[in-house]
């Protein structure tokens, strides 16, 4: 049985692609509420596949993923949309909507969640203040630097007050200064009570966080340390 205090469970999850390549094999671990967990491993280890399975973008070949005791892959289309609104996402390549301003990019997430115009007008400037981007509110993504784009992405992930933030290699395209900023923002978000799942292969970040580290290699969990370093 799943313990009640557990938020997310990967229960013997395997993913085999049609070309027979094994992306994940028998992955089992759980995440508690308000935890900051780093998933590390070399490129191609299966980190991104793990997140795609969690978001319902792909289905596991075997095994089950639970979110608050509910099997994510048993949700219908409408329920999966509702579930995704409870999760904030930050990607390595930012994935902002290029034809929308900073304000509209963030507002879109709120509109998708059915929030009112008044809520949007008051929350968007507030969340931009949190990531220190108020002066860029009416700029388009092409007018921003990499670090600024990633902060917009974080603001977008945050604005619906999600229970979990997933950051997939968020610092992969950033210089050390912006990397530091992004990690600090993620730590701040976690301190405010949001669960953070971070995938990275940046050793410096992991060592500085000094939090839980799950290491994946060739699709298998090879290490799960409560206060780990990149290498043991």
């Amino acid at each position, binding site marked *: 049985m799943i313990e009640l205090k557990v938020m997310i469970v990967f229960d013997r999850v395997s993913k085999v692609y049609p070309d027979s390549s094994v992306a994940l094999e028998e992955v089992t671990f759980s995440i508690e509420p308000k935890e900051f967990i780093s998933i590390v491993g070399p490129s191609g280890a299966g980190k991104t596949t793990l997140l795609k399975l969690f978001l319902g973008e792909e289905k596991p070949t075997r095994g089950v993923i639970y979110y608050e005791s509910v099997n994510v892959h048993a949700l219908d289309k409408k329920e999966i949309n509702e579930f995704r609104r409870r999760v904030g996402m930050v990607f390595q390549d930012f994935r902002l909507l*290029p034809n929308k301003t900073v304000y509209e990019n963030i507002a879109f997430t709120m509109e998708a969640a059915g929030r009112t115009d008044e809520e949007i007008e008051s929350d968007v400037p507030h969340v931009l203040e949190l990531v220190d981007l108020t002066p860029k509110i009416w700029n388009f993504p092409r007018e921003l630097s990499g670090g600024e784009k990633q902060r917009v992405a974080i603001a977008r992930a945050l604005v619906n007050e999600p229970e979990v933030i997933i950051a997939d290699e968020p610092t992969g395209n950033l210089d050390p200064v912006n990397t530091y900023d992004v990690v600090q923002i993620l730590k701040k978000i976690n301190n405010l009570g949001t669960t953070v799942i971070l995938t990275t292969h940046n050793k410096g970040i992991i060592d500085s966080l000094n939090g839980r580290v799950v290491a994946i290699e060739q699709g298998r969990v090879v290490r799960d340390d409560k206060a780990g370093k990149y290498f043991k």
Partner: protein
Amino acid sequence: MFWMKLKRIIRTGFFNFWRDGTVSLASVLVMMVTLMVVGLISFSGAILDITLLELRNKIDINVTFVTSAKEEDILNVRHALESLTEVSLVTYVSRDEALTAFKERHSSDQSILSALDELGENPLGAVLNIKARDPSQYASVAEFLEGGNALSSDGITIVDRINYFENKAAIDKLTHIIASADRMGFALTIFLAIISVLIAFNTIRLTIYIARDEISVMRLVGASTTYIQGPFVVVGIIYGITAGFLTLLLLLPLTYWLGSTTESFFIGFNIFSYYLRHFLEIALIIVASGVFIGAISSLLAIRKYLKV
């Protein structure tokens, strides 16, 4: 909630149309080509109809009666012909009228006129000019006359000749051409319509292909299918409306020019005055086609990227 969502979808559609200026311009131009084809199809339909009607009206048969035939007997034949369903019009030309017309036709040829004078009497028989409802029905009209329906009260045939048998080959050929032109016109219309709709569909599909990453991001932030699809459909509709109005505008000088240059060729049909007379009807067809093609293309093209 519904109205709020609808308002946001329409607003986003307008923003996307405006901000993606180059893509929008290209799509509108391609859509204009499609709608121009739709417009020309409705013109060519009218041109074909009117030209064929004119051709049909030009076909007739003349029954020439012997000079000794009594007018009363001829009028009886006329009456019998008029009661046939195949016949639309029968005109009677008396012997005197035939002679006057003949003299008029040959007024410059003195030798013919003097020959007529020498004869001393009218050598021409009375004529019934018959127009059938359809060119293919002349055969049965001619058979009717041959089959003993044109006899005098004494039972002697009063028909001198029926020019159907002289013109049969020409009438048959014309009937065949008219039928083929009808069929060809229809097939060509369908063919052109399909090609142009496919071109418009593919253009819109490309614009959505460009946006496929955005669509997946929208999916991942939990946007519903309607909320993602909606603005794309709105953009498709705007393409249709804009292209529709531009096409209508462009057709004005085009038909004006075509109208004066082709009027003699199309036997009295002026494409420009036809366009002005049927403007509302044509505008409705063109704009509605644009809206329909734009919306349906967007709906179909986006489905592929919504599977995430």
